[in-house]
């Protein structure tokens, strides 16, 4: 055992590391990251002269690439990667986790699309955020006109069971617009997920068409063209056009890149016999 009294700090989180053995891996007392013992060799336990790359999660031996296998284990709903050595006891202890299919990972790697995906995310996301803000300002403006100005008389009223609630159409239709905006925002973020990019792109295209049609209809239904000051309408329309254009461009890009990924995945599955 080590006799030094210095506190050894974890190189990952800064927590205290209690050195349990001079020639074995110890673990940080806080985050449990493995830390080398003071006199421990940095080499693989089976191949002296080759630097170790991993630590067996069961016995704590240092291992080189030839001596470990990676597994994916479900820890309370999170899929985490663990490493074990080839000792039968360690393999047996790790069998609850499934072997990582590295070939599948290699074939399904989509890092080539990172740059394009980042641009697509920013375009669709930016457009969706503009649409969301646009819808929020739209409802605020309409409520203000309905309840605090005489312009509310321009807006139609609904009578339900003989009772007319002032501003009901404004509230109901504008809330629907807000929900549609939230749906756009949600879908625009999903274009960043590889396996959902294609369908999210298509869905975005559909939603932006619906949103445009719904907006035009609301404008006509509430007689917004008759507003004495067209500033409100112009500002909102400009924001809407910019947002819709961005979403349109982004979603087309998502469909294009997403389709390429879809083809790549299908090929990978065919190659590995996963299609059946």
């Amino acid at each position, binding site marked *: 055992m080590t006799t030094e009294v210095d506190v050894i700090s974890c190189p990952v989180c800064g927590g205290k590391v209690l050195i349990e053995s001079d020639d074995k891996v110890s673990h940080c007392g806080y*985050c449990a990251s493995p830390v080398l013992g003071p006199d421990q060799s940095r080499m693989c336990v089976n191949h002296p002269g080759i630097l170790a790359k991993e630590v067996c999660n069961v016995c704590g031996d240092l291992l080189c690439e030839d001596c470990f296998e990676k597994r994916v284990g479900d820890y309370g709903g999170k899929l985490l990667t663990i490493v074990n050595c080839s000792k039968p006891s360690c393999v047996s202890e790790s069998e609850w986790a499934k072997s990582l299919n590295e070939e599948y990972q290699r074939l399904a790697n989509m890092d080539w699309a990172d740059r394009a995906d980042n641009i697509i995310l920013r375009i669709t996301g930016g457009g969706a955020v503009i649409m969301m803000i646009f819808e929020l300002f739209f409802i605020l403006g309409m409520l203000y006109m309905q309840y605090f100005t005489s312009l509310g008389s321009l807006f139609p009223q609904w009578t339900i069971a003989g009772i007319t609630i002032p501003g009901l159409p404004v509230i109901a239709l504008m809330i629907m617009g807000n929900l549609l905006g939230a749906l756009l925002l949600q879908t625009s973020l999903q274009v960043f997920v590889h396996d959902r990019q294609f369908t999210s792109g298509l869905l975005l295209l559909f939603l932006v068409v619906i949103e445009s049609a719904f907006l035009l209809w609301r404008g006509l239904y509430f007689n917004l063209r008759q507003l004495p000051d067209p500033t409100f309408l112009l500002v909102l329309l400009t924001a809407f056009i910019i947002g819709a254009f961005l979403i349109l461009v982004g979603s087309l890009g998502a469909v294009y890149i997403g389709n390429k990924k879809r083809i790549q995945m299908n090929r990978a599955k065919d190659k590995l016999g996963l299609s059946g």
Partner: protein
Amino acid sequence: MPEENKVYTIFDRPKGLRFIGLLQMAFGAVGLLATIGLIVASIVGSPELPGGIGFVYAALVFVGVAIPCLIIGNFVDDLRRNAVIAQIIYSLAAMGLAGLFLFLRGLQYIWTVPLFQIELVIAIGNLSAFIVATQAFVILYLILTWDSAVPPAGAKVIRDRGEARRYEQDLVPLPFTPAVLSSDGVTELSDDESKHVLEIRKEYTVEGMAVLCSNCGGATPLTKVERNRLKCDYCGVTLGVSSVFVPCENHPEYLAATTCAVCGNHFCRKCLTAQEPPVDERWAGSTIFMCRKCFEGRYRPAVTTTSFVVPIDKLFSTAGSRFSSVGRIYGRFLGAYGSVMKHLWRVPLELLASLGKSGGGSGGDNCVGALIMIVIIIIAIPILAGILLLVGAIIIIPFLFYAGLIAVTFEAIKVIRKTDFQSIDTVRIQSIVEKKKQKQKQSKMRPVTRSWESDYERIPSEARRRQMEEHRRSEEERRKRIYEDRRPAQTFWGER
């Protein structure tokens, strides 16, 4: 372990301490009600409280009973030394006063308190005796259980239940501090010294691969490693050397600090973020470290665990969580409201019955009074309360719902700008600069769990066997290639 170094959690408190806390809070609540009652009685001009004496009584009860009982009761069961001492002093004072009262007035002394048209008879002598008995119990209990009710001075006490639970599961053995530690790894440096360390530290070295210090963020060359330890060039802290002995995937100039828990690749502190560990006894650490790609969760679940893929109902539940929680609160409130109404109706009905039984006398007045009481208590108050609730719901719920939507928009902006990924290195330096412990906050738009759904499991067994065989062969070839290309161990370590 010395007692002052022991970490106590809220679950270590004795059960009786919790009871004492609740008891004191109950006394405080009664004191508050009494204060309100005295003020109302004074305002309506009760003959028992002439010349504004009611306000004086109200102030005395408020300052002497309501406030101290509520404050002490709130803190005494949190394993706080000062609160326990305050409780003992207060209990002694309360015992003394109640005892004096008993001595002067006797056990049979009663008060008649007017309440609208009725009079409440309070056996104040008995109440005083009750106070003497309970406060004596409190003092006795606190003295007898002093060691468990009062942690040693300077001992760390975890009062947050969530944190305490994690600690009880051996997940949080150490508190962290938002200050640079000195070379002993324990003492905190002063603000000026911390600032100095941050100013002089360098994040790059010209001497080859470096290790980033988890204390100050400075880079110390790997060549200075001795016995698998490294003294930081800037703050002097002794760092252990990670068993992950490869360069960071993104920064070849740094030794990887650890592996990403999700993909298993190796990264430095600049490329890893930290998240709450899964609730699973097999996971020993308090944290999982994750690289940006896995944090973003762009791959299928066989590769990653985090994901952007928020089901649409989750988005709205994020935005509308306040909506639903407010709805639940309203639901509970309405339930409680209904049960209170039962009692509200029972009291006037009993009063009405007693009025009916009284017969004769000023029968007409009684009848009118009873009718007014019925109108006020049975009809007006519930309706008024109902209207207030409805108005509250109409205003508050949409307001909170829209606040949720705005919050989601802000989260989405962070995701788009990619600023929701905070590396452990950035967080550490921020916490030192801002002098506050960084709260671990996960993006609302990136849930951290995802159900197990592996393609691997769905394929037929024959195909799986073929796939495994192919995988094994390709893996063998790959390893052969790696073995042939392998660099000598010294590569990372210069010419040592």
